[in-house]
């Protein structure tokens, strides 16, 4: 082989390496998800059954909604650590309203409360100029505190007409509970919002390059506040599902779920520095986390390993993202 051909080969190998990494980030999540499903389908009899898969979809509803909203926030270059707290707050409010005024108003109230709390977060971030992760780390506990206060410091609040409220989350369509359909609808709406609207383009622009977006006439602070409202709305909806599912609203019941949401977004391959990503990846991330937890239970690995494994996947995704960014430079 001539030296030219060797050099060309080397360049090709470099490109291929980079292309491989980029491909791993873009489709790694799908491959990993399919591979995991295949492994669990082979080593257990129970994984690939209709009942189990439906369960998986249903269990992913609440974290899925939180993660869908979180995707928009992270693409805009921000963070929302308060979604778990908003879920609990909205659930408590929904339970109150359900006892007074019935199902429809309860769901609307939960969503409105989510939007309102998201707006407060957005105002704190854009007006007081506190970094969003720090602001929402703090508001998380303020929100839980108020929610606990609403339950007379008992932390939980029971719905009187559980059977009536249950219709929201547990009605069946094609054999699958409505909460899974609601979450799917949430994903479709967010997908359409990001893909097909001007607003979506502005969210990407703000997360990709704030200064450039400002110069191009995007109202950066409005967009930043609005993404926190979007995640608040999703968390409110998840809160309505939570209370409709169990009949009991727990003020601090959503705490910790924000990590699962962020994990799903990161694992999906949406860039944590903003500006790049999409919500179908997040859906894949949510399903991957659910499959891991589900599969571990089926093969009798203690659930104590769940979080360690989850953390390992997240760390891998983050390092891959950082590696790619460096290669791209």
């Amino acid at each position, binding site marked *: 082989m001539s030296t030219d051909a060797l050099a060309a080969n080397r360049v090709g190998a470099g490109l291929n390496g980079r292309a491989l990494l980029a491909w791993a980030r873009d489709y790694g999540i799908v491959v990993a998800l399919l591979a995991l499903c295949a492994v669990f389908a082979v080593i257990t009899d129970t994984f690939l059954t209709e009942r189990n898969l439906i369960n998986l979809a249903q269990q992913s509803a609440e974290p899925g909604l939180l993660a869908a909203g979180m995707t928009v926030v992270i693409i805009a270059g921000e963070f929302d650590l308060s979604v778990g707290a908003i879920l609990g707050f909205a659930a408590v409010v929904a339970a109150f309203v359900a006892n007074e005024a019935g199902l429809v108003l309860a769901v609307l109230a939960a969503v409105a409360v989510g939007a309102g709390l998201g707006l407060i977060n957005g105002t704190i971030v854009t007006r007081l100029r506190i970094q969003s992760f720090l602001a929402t*780390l703090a508001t998380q506990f303020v929100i839980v505190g108020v929610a606990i206060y609403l339950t007379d410091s008992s932390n939980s609040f029971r719905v009187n007409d559980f059977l009536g409220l249950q219709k929201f989350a547990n009605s069946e369509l094609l054999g699958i509970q409505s909460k899974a359909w609601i979450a799917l609808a949430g994903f479709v709406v967010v997908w359409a919002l990001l893909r097909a609207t001007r607003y979506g383009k502005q969210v990407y622009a703000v997360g990709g390059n704030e200064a450039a977006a400002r110069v191009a006439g995007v109202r950066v602070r409005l967009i930043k506040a609005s993404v926190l409202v979007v995640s608040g709305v999703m968390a409110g909806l998840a809160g309505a599902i939570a209370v409709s599912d169990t009949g009991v609203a727990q003020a601090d019941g959503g705490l910790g779920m924000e990590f699962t949401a962020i994990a799903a977004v990161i694992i999906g391959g949406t860039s944590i520095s903003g500006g790049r990503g999409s919500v179908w990846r997040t859906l894949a991330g949510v399903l991957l986390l659910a499959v891991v937890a589900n599969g571990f239970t089926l093969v009798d690995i203690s659930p104590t390993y769940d979080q360690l494994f989850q953390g390992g996947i997240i760390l891998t995704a983050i390092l891959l993202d950082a590696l790619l960014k460096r290669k791209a430079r």
Partner: protein
Amino acid sequence: MGADVIRALKPRAGLLEFAGLFGLLVLFVVLSLASSAFLSKDNLLNVLQANSDIGIAACAGTLVIVAGGIDLSVGAIYALAGVLSAKLAISTGVGVGILAGVAAGAALGLLNGLVVTAGRVSPLIATLAGAIVFTGGAEVLADQELLTPEAAGFVELGRDSLLGVKYSVWLLVVAAIAFGFLLSRARFGREVRVVGSNQEAARLSGVNVGRVRCLTYVLSGLAAAVAGVVAVSQAGQAQSNIGGIPYVLAVIAAIAVGGTSLRGGEGAVWRTIIGVLFLGLVNNGLGLLNVDPLYNQFFTGLLILIAVSGEIYVRRGSGRIAT
């Protein structure tokens, strides 16, 4: 004349230097007047003891933040070190348990530091992921059990006193002096401040930026582990759910309330001690006023928002909030 008065009243960065100290004194006087139980040696020592674990990690965390980073994994390291030390104290030996817990903290801090510097991941994301992994580690170690190390040597660490003051408080004093000296007097501290205010300038003036940033995470992990071990020995029991995000919130709140800028470059350990005492007095006061401890984190969260927005407000100088 009127304008002069207004100008004089306008908050300035110079005044802000002592806002935390001033707030602490006011709170102290108010609590002394409001509750007869407050101003006793026992109560004040209790406040110190109850907050020593937060303070120890906050002293080291100050270095991380001054260097322009943040460590969200201190709560998870606290839990993992606490569980590990309890487990080994039961199975192997007290000394081994304590040393292993502390060493594990330093090692996890090193891991954070490497992900941040060599992996070039933002500190927020790196330590958030670290928190999830380390919490997972603590869960695996504890295996859903409540560990109760009963060996005398282990529980003595948290419960015994020297000169009428608990060992844990002495450890806080040592941490405050050591990290305070490191940050304000040692060459390393100067490097930390330079790195935090301008990384590029630090690099150009020959500071090994990666090494300095990495070391701050090692120290933070080490201190969080000491805090976890002390807390477990105080309680005589360990579970994987100790520490966590509430602990992180308290540590960051102590640093922010003291007046160290969360954007890096400036800050001091004595400020953090003021922040720890301030938060401690708030919680103590709420307890004396019979407020349910369920609400402690509510007030901690609120104080973070007030402290950070106050700092940003004053730094922007002109007194405008919005533009």
